[in-house]
């Protein structure tokens, strides 16, 4: 029985290794600045997990995950911004009580779509529902008409471009190119202190493991198998009577929700949100993390996000010139030589050796037992 256990042995090991790393090793060994950086990297892991489901399993390459990351992030940022621009904080403005960038752009009243974000529960709901709804519309429009593959990728990329241009252009409503900055408190709790960052890191890791479990659940159910079947032979699945479009829409929406959670956590960790995390370049970078980690592996996506971003930070700190060369070369190498990324290398090269090592030790000890047992007979 394949399905009888939620994680098989190597997956369980991967799960535990990741848990030990994220819950124990990193918080104990890193200072708060670096830990906050790790938290920032991990926000991309949420997107990566979504992409594993939608791209690795479903075969739907979305180049617009930045849209959902951004929507989640902006929802959170709008709530935080409204809290930061209370009447008391903004009394020097010509219209107190609205965010500062609106005041600079001669807006005198809060736009209607900002109003719901006064409430924390509605914000939390919006973080999940707005991107899901958005993904539902895009997905329904495209998959019902059997747009897929390359065309889907290009159209989602165009949507990422559209949203970026819209956010930058509508400065009065969105904060423009600078984004929504100067965020202070979450429900009255100051998020800028080191202590808050420490706690937020753990909140994020817990959420991340929640998403991992959810993704693993989706992967193991019949739904996950249909996704794989669709990726391999879409027509046969359709002829077998499944509604291919609906499954694709579901995978796309799930990926969008994961990305949005990542985006919301990003806003909390980093303290601002701007269109530079929405557009084409960040969206493709998110795909890069997933590809490097392994598009078929949920844990691989987390490792990919961590390692690529770690390499990015350390390389661009010391050799800013080399970083783009390195990233480009990494990407070409992953696509050409290791289509299954790091997890593929692990599964193909490292895992068999470990198994062989363990197996030979076991057989040796078994042989030893026989040898020991023989004289006693």
């Amino acid at each position, binding site marked *: 029985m394949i399905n009888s256990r939620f994680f098989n042995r190597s997956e369980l090991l991967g799960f535990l290794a990741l848990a030990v790393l994220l819950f124990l090793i990193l918080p104990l060994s890193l200072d708060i600045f670096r830990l906050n950086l790790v938290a920032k990297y991990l926000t991309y892991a949420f997107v990566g997990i979504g992409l594993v489901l939608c791209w690795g399993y479903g075969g739907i*390459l979305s*180049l617009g995950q930045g849209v959902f990351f951004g929507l989640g992030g902006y929802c959170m940022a709008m709530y935080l911004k409204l809290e930061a621009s209370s009447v008391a904080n903004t009394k020097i403005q010509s219209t107190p009580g609205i965010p500062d960038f609106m005041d600079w752009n001669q807006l005198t009243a809060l736009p209607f779509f900002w109003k719901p974000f006064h409430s924390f529960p509605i914000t939390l709901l919006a973080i999940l529902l707005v991107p899901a709804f958005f993904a539902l519309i895009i997905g329904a*429009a*495209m998959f019902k*008409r*059997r*747009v897929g*593959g*390359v*065309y889907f*990728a*290009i*159209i989602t*990329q*165009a*949507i990422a*471009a*559209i949203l970026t*241009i*819209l956010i*930058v*252009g509508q400065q009065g409503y969105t904060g423009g190119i600078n984004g929504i900055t100067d965020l202070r408190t979450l429900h009255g709790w100051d998020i800028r202190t080191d202590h808050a960052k420490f706690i937020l890191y753990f909140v994020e890791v817990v959420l991340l493991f929640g998403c991992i479990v959810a993704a693993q659940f989706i992967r193991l159910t019949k739904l996950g198998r249909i996704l794989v079947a669709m990726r391999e032979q879409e027509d046969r699945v359709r002829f077998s009577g499944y509604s291919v479009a609906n499954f694709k829409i579901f995978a796309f929406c799930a990926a969008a929700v994961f990305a949005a959670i990542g985006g919301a956590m990003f806003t909390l960790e980093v303290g601002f949100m701007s269109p530079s995390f929405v557009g*084409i*370049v960040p969206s*493709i970078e998110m*795909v*890069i993390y997933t*590809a490097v980690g392994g598009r078929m592996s949920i844990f691989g996506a987390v490792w990919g996000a961590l390692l690529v971003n770690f390499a990015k930070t350390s390389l661009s700190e010391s050799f800013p*010139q080399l970083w*783009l*060369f390195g*990233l*480009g*070369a*990494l*990407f*070409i190498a*992953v*696509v*050409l030589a290791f*289509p299954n990324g790091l997890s593929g290398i692990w599964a193909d090269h490292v895992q068999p050796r470990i198994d062989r090592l363990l197996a030979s030790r076991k057989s040796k000890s078994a042989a030893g037992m026989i040898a020991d047992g023989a004289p006693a007979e």
Partner: protein
Amino acid sequence: MFGDYSISDLGAILAMQGFAGLILFSVYVLMALGLAIIFGQMGVINMAHGEFMILGAYVTWMTSNAVQHTAPWLFPGYFFIAMILAFIASGALGMLVEWALIRHLYKRPLDTLLATWGLSLILQQAYRSIFGAREVGVELPEWMMGSWQATDSIQIPINGMFVMALTILITIVVFYILFWSSWGKQVRAVVQNRVMAGAVGINTEKVDRYTFGLGCGIAGIAGSAFTMIGSTGPTAGQLYIVDTFLVVVFGGAASLFGTIASAFSISQTQSTLEFFLSGSMAKVITLLTIVAILMVRPQGLFALKVRK
């Protein structure tokens, strides 16, 4: 929206915006032609297409500098030399890339997208290291500057007209190559049925390499033309790549005629809207319209019927 303008003013505005749209149209067509050959004919998503274009632009810039320093008497005509050099440089790089990268990925179109994105990052950084991060602009020869006064209120810049003439010429040449030359027939045969084309004796690998080179070379010419109406920076190519892909997809991927029709409608819509709205809103509305139309008609305006 129309209240403040008289009829003749509106006519002049429409004519001038229409012309601005035509220049945009020319740039789109030049970029999209190369991409239509690579994406439409070969099915390769070349995200580095913009960088091939920028290579052409840098070649033009270098030629203009070299000609100014060594042979100033050649300066009025340097542009033609530059264009040929741009075509050769981009085409050669394209063939090299096809040999090293693309030919391994024909069966995995989505992966060509990722690999060429990596290539575009490398090329961008290479341009930045070699030519510097600042934007460069070429000096135009005297005969290209100034504008032609059509009527009292309508002015048409000469470099724009030159770019348009160039676009028409290149389009004709591309159509000739693809639809009348025997090599073009081979290309189309490979597109429609690769196995069968190989079976009747066409060297499909060679055809692939030259087709990719041709597409990239045209991108180089597009970059060369681009220097005449704008300045060139290391990341300028990325600004156009999404637009160009939309032009090709909107026109119907395999149809060159569709590419031209869609470049025309997109550029005209955008430049006309730009006058009445802000630039960014014009772009948003144009792109949204394209995406909406593509959702209704995913195969684009002109679809080629091929058996899959």
